[in-house]
């Protein structure tokens, strides 16, 4: 049986490095992620796109892209369950430690493996298909390195936790620390007690999040869920400023005058 219920060591030495990594860095990353995304949304609407390469090649993409994207969506759901929902809540709905880990490992492995196969295929496609490679920017390459590394590190934690009996249960270490970040009481000791593989995965993840607003990954933030609810036909008046939240024109560039419809007191959206 997989040993996953090793309790965290009782006496944890929290050093300066631990404080910086698990007490300070998460807030720096959060600030970069949030402010960076807001900044990008306000000032780079035109660059905010998936930059799809389907036009160049679609045979491989048709398999690899859904594999990766659906895989990573499942992985995100898995992370949510593991990190955000406290152990006690799961116990309350009769999902005990063993059952939880059975689901986490089985479903998580499949999703993680699909994600890995997907991204490896996508990178292979990107490298070997001439037009796609030519359309790959340096920014993309850096992003791929961090994304792939985070996925690999994540899968590694799964593998280690299966075969290494000494791995500390992340639900007692990483998860409480993660939740504590958002109440501004970072539980540095809990994270310090986590096993090395989890620490590495967490750090790669933080790096990826810091990079996120400045890469094409931002397209995930505008996942078009509103499509399910909006009317099919969109009317828009010539005079209106298009994207809510986008920056207003700079001083001196603001449009002058009154749109004729508004002048007549007729407003329609």
């Amino acid at each position, binding site marked *: 049986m997989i040993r996953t219920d090793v309790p965290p060591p009782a006496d944890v030495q929290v050093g300066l490095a631990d404080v910086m990594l698990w007490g300070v860095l998460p807030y720096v990353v959060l600030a970069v992620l949030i402010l960076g995304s807001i900044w990008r949304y306000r000032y780079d609407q035109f660059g905010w796109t998936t930059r*799809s390469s389907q036009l160049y090649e679609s045979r491989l993409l048709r398999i690899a892209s859904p594999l990766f994207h659906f895989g990573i969506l499942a992985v995100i759901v898995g992370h949510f369950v593991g990190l955000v929902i406290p152990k006690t809540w799961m116990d309350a709905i009769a999902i005990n430690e063993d059952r939880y880990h059975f689901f986490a490992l089985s479903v998580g492995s499949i999703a993680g493996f699909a994600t890995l196969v997907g991204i490896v295929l996508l990178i292979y496609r990107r490298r070997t298909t001439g037009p796609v490679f*030519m359309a790959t920017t340096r920014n993309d390459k850096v992003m791929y390195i961090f994304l792939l590394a985070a996925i690999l590190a994540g899968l590694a934690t799964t593998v280690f936790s299966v075969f290494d009996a000494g791995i500390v249960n992340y639900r007692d270490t990483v998860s409480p620390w993660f939740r504590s970040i958002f109440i501004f009481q970072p539980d540095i000791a809990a994270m310090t007690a986590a096993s090395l593989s989890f620490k590495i995965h967490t750090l790669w993840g933080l790096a990826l999040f810091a990079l996120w607003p400045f890469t094409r990954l931002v397209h995930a933030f505008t996942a078009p869920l*509103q499509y399910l609810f909006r009317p099919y036909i969109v009317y828009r008046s010539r005079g209106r400023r*298009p994207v809510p939240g986008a920056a207003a024109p700079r001083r001196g560039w603001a*449009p002058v005058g009154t749109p004729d419809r508004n002048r007549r007191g007729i407003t329609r959206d």
Partner: protein
Amino acid sequence: MRIMAQTAMVMALDKCIGCHTCSVTCKQAWTNRAGTEYVWFNNVETRPGQGYPRRYEDQEKWKGGWELNSRGKLKLKAGGRLAKLFGIFASPVQPELDDYYEPWTYDYENLINAPAGNDFPVAKPKSLITGQDMKIQWSANWDDDLGGSARTELSDPVLEKMRREAEEKVKLEFDSTFMFYLPRICEHCLNPSCMASCPSGAIYKREEDGIVLVDQDRCRGWRQCVTGCPYKKMYFNHRSGKAEKCTFCYPRIEVGLPTVCAETCVGRLRYIGIFLYDADRVTAAASVPDEKDLYEAQLDLMMDPNDPEVIAAARAEGIPEDWLEAARRSPVYALAKTFRVALPLHPEYRTMPMVWYVPPLSPIVDVLNEQGHDGESADNLFGAIDALRIPVEYLAELFTAGDTDLVTGVLRKLAAMRAYMRNITLGDAPDEQVAADVGMTGEQITAMYRLMAIAKYEERYVIPSAHLEDAHNLEEIGCSLDVEGGPGMGQTGVFGEASGKPMPVAVENFAALQARQRGDDPTGNGDLGGRVNLLNWDGRGSPKGLFPADGNRGEPGTTGGTQPGDSGSGLGAGYDQAEGDGPDRQGGDR
């Protein structure tokens, strides 16, 4: 009733000579950029033919447009909202570059840099996508003029459908081939399926003029619109990762100028005007069960701009008076509804397209002429329209969802116009019976003739400009004094010529183009007060002030070889002669 205005176009296909001037000027104006090499907002197809992208009309494959679901409601052919979202990671039905073509350029440098040798250096084609050498196999008008040949016969989805329905008959009769040209731009539909497919809601229809645009800031590159548009007039810019489409040259339309494709059309076959339509009934009209009723349903949405009720409703919606006036003079309304000769392209896609076509009579006239018959006699034409099933059926598949009666009706009107006007031209009495045969009066035929054959610029393009209160929202902000006759005219600031604020391009173009199109003086130099703007001079004629006035020569004290009154020598005099003697010709008495 909710009245909205729609800028629309009609193309009279008989007049199209397939010169591609529209495509080229459009490309130069709009898609002459990296990422849009394969993008043709305007293209001209030879029909029968595959079209661009290849076989785009095969909706069983491309899933464009709308269809009715089992409950009779409109639904996107490519699937509902959830299906669209699930297909977002790799759009399931999507034309690839091969369905368009791989854009290329030529290695011209080799022509100059190649070392001396026995062979002529060649400029090899280089792919604009990969930068590598490539073999050119296809492009936007590759099957130009191949209409009806065995090659296109096999690949035209419309012919394929006809052949499926009629089996051998078509194949045999098809030996007598026909062809015509079909210029295509975005249809600026009333019920656009690209817009409905867009997950981000980036595609919108402008309330004021109905032009369908992609908000480049809001587009996230999900590519669903490319699938959604049955005309495949949505293009993916592979550099910017955004969708782009024909803009109906909205910056020009806003200042009352026709689109680039229309302005440069050699055959003068394009008409631009506005419709007033009832926006409340669009969905119902697009949902009529029988495809063959779609044309009538669409026509029914176009409201009579002379109807007081419509005018009142339009005013209530805030449509300005000059727009109502333009709607009354609209050439597109006249062709589509008054004369009923303009038909929508593929109404069966249920998008309510707003670019209409007058189907060509030429395939029928050509056959008559080839067989030695009189191609302008009403009897011959009427007989041939009924007898030549293939062209009529083909046109019906394009314009009326297969209803040949409608196409026949239009062709008979065109034939009647030909015959009726020939009598007048030949000095005979007009044959009112010909007009009556197609349910028109001689007066109506003459009016239609004037609009379609004389086709004056002012009658082809009745474009109300964007409203004055809105002028400052146009794409360039200019000083209101910088217009013709204003103190800012001619870009002359306090430091002399070309100083001061730059002239906004739209205003400059508008003034200059209007002067050039309508005035006698092609350079419009009357306003410059004796000076010449050489940058505006296109080489035609000699603008005033280019050469010293003749009067100078006669003045006492002037030196030089030219004798007073010697109008036969000197370059300036020669130009004057070439121009002809106008009332404003500068003489020695000035």
